[in-house]
């Protein structure tokens, strides 16, 4: 029942978004422009590109997530739709998980698309590591979108919201960024260290996915 409510809210967001082609395409094209900026700024050769890959990947993901998060509650902006959603006879945490799942699916989809794009555009030969890299990205994205969805709810109706979202999200995601970059770097090196970073990513995910629904409940309480 509760699982179904989560699924319904997420389904509404994802399908609505795919039909309007709103968030997904703007995230994707934003990611591509970030990659163009990186290429123009650093002009890495193949060797450098391999070294820069973990950072490029996470930086692109982080910036792109910001674009997606700015729109998480966009469908609920008008006609008191957000209040309508809150009236649903499920716990507030369930509503949070629904919104989170919708955002998570879109973000994962974008990551799935930008990883091959980066490998092609930067001429990096890391194709055999693609599944492992995607797994790390997905693991970090769980907590990233959890924290992000909460912050999106927090800044709903705020002035200069996008800037505020970036200011709040970026420092709090420092552990995820460090662990994510180090884990992917560890995978790319033959004798790299991966396990402790995966542990740190998991701690980050667990903390935020436990904390965020509770905080969301406090946030929307009248």
């Amino acid at each position, binding site marked *: 029942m509760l699982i179904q409510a989560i699924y319904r809210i997420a389904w509404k967001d994802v399908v609505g978004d795919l039909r309007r082609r709103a968030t997904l395409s703007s995230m994707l094209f934003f990611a591509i422009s970030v990659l163009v900026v990186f290429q123009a700024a650093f002009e890495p050769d193949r060797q450098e590109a391999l070294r820069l890959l973990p950072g490029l990947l996470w930086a692109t993901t982080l910036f792109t997530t910001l674009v997606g998060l700015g729109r998480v509650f966009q469908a609920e902006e008008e006609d008191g739709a957000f209040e309508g959603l809150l009236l649903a006879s499920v716990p507030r945490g369930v509503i949070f998980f629904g919104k989170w799942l919708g955002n998570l699916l879109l973000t994962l989809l974008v990551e799935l698309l930008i990883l091959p794009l980066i490998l092609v555009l930067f001429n990096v030969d890391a194709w055999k590591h693609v599944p492992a890299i995607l797994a790390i990205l997905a693991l970090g994205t769980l907590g990233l979108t959890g924290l992000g969805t909460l912050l999106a709810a927090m800044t709903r109706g705020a002035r200069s919201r996008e800037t505020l979202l970036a200011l709040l999200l970026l420092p709090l995601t420092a552990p995820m960024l460090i662990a994510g970059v*180090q884990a992917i770097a560890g995978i790319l090196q033959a004798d790299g260290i991966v396990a402790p970073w995966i542990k740190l990513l998991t701690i980050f995910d667990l903390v935020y996915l436990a904390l965020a629904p509770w905080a969301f409940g406090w946030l929307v309480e009248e």
Partner: protein
Amino acid sequence: MNILKKIQLPTGILTWITLIAGVWLVFNVPDDFQQGGAVKILYIHVPSAKMALLSYLVVTVASILHLWKRSETADILAEAATSVGAAFTAMTLASGSIWGKPMWGTWWAWDARLTSMLVLLILFKGLMVLRHSLDDPVKGARATAILAIIGAVDLPIIHYSVVWWRTLHQPPSLSAGSNAGIHIAGPLLTPLLILTVAFMLLTLYMTTVKARQIEARRRLDALETARMHADE
């Protein structure tokens, strides 16, 4: 809030006395034989760092009280301690940089403590901005309180992730200097203790002044709103 008015003057006087006594002692202890006169900046740096963290603790506790008891006083305290904490965090970073230039040969290093402090500064700034960017002050206060609690949970994770990052990634080449500072001889320790007390009083004094200022501001805003409603 009456108690704030009462303690403001005595706290202010005590702050000045301890600060002057502490600084006088600092300039009367012998210089460190390795670090020379530059070591004296640590007498400002170390208490600043402690007060920055103490302020965040106050913000967190006040935020919990605000959410739990819906106490306006707790919210005013949280807002006041946020500004004070931000000031001490900036002071810590600035004094650390000034000490780092002659000692480490560089203004900045991505050392665990420096990075955590920088993140703390951004977090304080985020708390200050979030409160005033929501039109409804009640919602702004609640969102800020929740962010403060999330930050309190995140800060240890940030700190340990940066420590891991610097230790697993490369040896902490620069932090050796600051660890060596643990062995402080008695005569050098006394001014540090006095200054720590002075900074605690200073924190209390600044928070008191700031809290009274915020309270007056809110009363003015309420009067303004009431007047506008009366005009209609």
